[in-house]
């Protein structure tokens, strides 16, 4: 019960403060050397209060980072061959460097996921406005995010229509690969313009600020300071 209370408290921290904490987490994680990998285990526990994501989603997001990490990391195995001893275990330096890179890379992704997934898109916009990010940029970002959903919907409609007309064939035929994205773009654009015109008729003004900026409460600051103190204490205690 107490643990659940702590979780909920941390998830309510102001989005702007969460973004700052996230940057501190990332800088600390990516600079961790192989001999300090054990810090990361304790830092991971400090991530728990921020988490609200199911492990499956993490797995999917971490997969995106793997190819480039593996491409760079595998070269360590061939280049750094001198033996190195960490945690009473002697292995070629390249293996240690490879392990450290993989752990750092995946934890960086995990950190972003943990910090951001508890924030809604509106909350993120709020946090960005609090951090003085220009309104124009925040508006474009929100539009892009919203139209990703619209586009997914249109792709679904178009593939269904295509399947119904294709006489039992699966997938989009090679002949339609050019017209399919073009038509998708036109349909999405048409709907987006219609929505935008309707919004303008209702008095929407893109230049006027409509993204609210919520105030930072004292509890946000105290929660952030407690988290930072625990985070900074790890290297000193271990």
């Amino acid at each position, binding site marked *: 019960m107490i643990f659940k209370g702590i979780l909920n408290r941390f998830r309510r921290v102001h989005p702007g403060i969460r973004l700052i904490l996230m940057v501190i987490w*990332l800088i600390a994680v*990516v600079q961790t050397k192989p001999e300090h990998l054990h810090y990361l285990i304790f830092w991971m526990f400090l991530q728990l209060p921020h988490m609200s994501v199911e492990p499956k989603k993490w797995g999917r997001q971490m997969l995106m980072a793997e190819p480039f*990490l593996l491409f*760079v990391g595998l070269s360590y195995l061939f280049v750094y061959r001198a033996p190195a001893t960490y945690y009473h275990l002697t292995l070629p330096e390249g293996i240690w460097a490879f392990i450290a890179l993989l752990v750092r890379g995946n934890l960086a992704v995990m950190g972003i996921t943990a910090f951001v997934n508890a924030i809604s898109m509106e909350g993120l916009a709020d946090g960005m406005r609090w951090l003085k990010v220009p309104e124009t940029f925040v508006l474009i970002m929100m539009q892009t995010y919203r139209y990703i959903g619209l586009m997914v919907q249109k792709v679904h409609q178009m593939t269904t229509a295509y399947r119904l007309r294709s006489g039992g064939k699966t997938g989009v035929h090679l002949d339609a690969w050019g017209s399919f994205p073009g038509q998708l773009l036109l349909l999405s*654009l048409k709907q*987006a*313009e219609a929505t935008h015109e309707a919004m303008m008729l209702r008095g929407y003004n893109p230049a006027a600020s409509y993204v609210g900026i919520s105030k930072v409460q004292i509890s946000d600051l105290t929660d952030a300071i407690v988290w930072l103190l625990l985070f900074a204490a790890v290297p000193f205690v271990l």
Partner: protein
Amino acid sequence: MHISDALISPAVGAAFWGVSLAAAAYAVKKVDLQTNSEKLPLAGVMGAFTFAAQMINFTIPGTGASGHLGGGLLLAILLGPHLGYLTMMSLLLIQALFFGDGGLIAYGANVFNMGILTCYVIYPLVYKVLKNRMGKLAIVFSAVAGLGLGAFAVAVETSLSGVVALPFTLFAGVMVPIHLVIGLVEGGITLAVVNYLRRFIPEKLAQMETDAETAFAPRKAMVSIGGLAAAIAGGLAYYASANPDGLEWSVLKVAKTIPEKAIHPAGEAIQNVMSIFSDYQMAGMENARISVGLAGLIGSVLTLLLVMLVVKSAERLKQR
């Protein structure tokens, strides 16, 4: 193409954040949403489209590698460089925060590779210059150049961060050719999309392209980028490290010495006569740092003149 956080040092990441934010401040100043509000849905849709295109990885035959579209050129062509750049920035942020693609420390570098290089370098200096001479092929050529340049920048950024074990030339030698092939596919798809829109919404597309082109003239781009190059060569070179560069360092590590004599004496003799700024120094100048700065500045101007000469010569050859 997306660099993750573990592949870049905070110092290099911060430097590229600085460059990207400066470009963003300029773009925000140039984009007037009050008078161009109808572009907002277009920016959203194009951003979503590019986002989707970047998610689809395709196999590059014979290499064992895969690639995805950058999309910066398409955004610049349809939205103009400023709005295109801001859209690219926003979609890269969404990818980094919600989809784990790229990173936050590496965000500035990713924006530089896929946004600044395509919208502010390739679009005004390659696409717009070639458009009237090569027609539709300009899109393909520009896409190849954009992705190649981006891949080279990835190699530079990760090498500067000290995370790549391979020598820079080898790493860049792997990165760039693969991305040139991906650039060909990107060019083909960008061309197909632009052609499709040209066929079905010709007036609207013509208006969009005209708006985009007047947003950032090649001459202005050349002056801006030239100014930046001069500032780097003449100003930042002042603070350049005196340590050997990556290649020299690698040679030193392997051979324990850098050969004094050239393999080809004739080549060395020609180089001795030709190199007026040997080791980036001005002859007869005592202050080494000012000497490096001045040599860098002159070198930048000479490079610019040489590029202009090549372009002019190519134009004349084509007229014949």
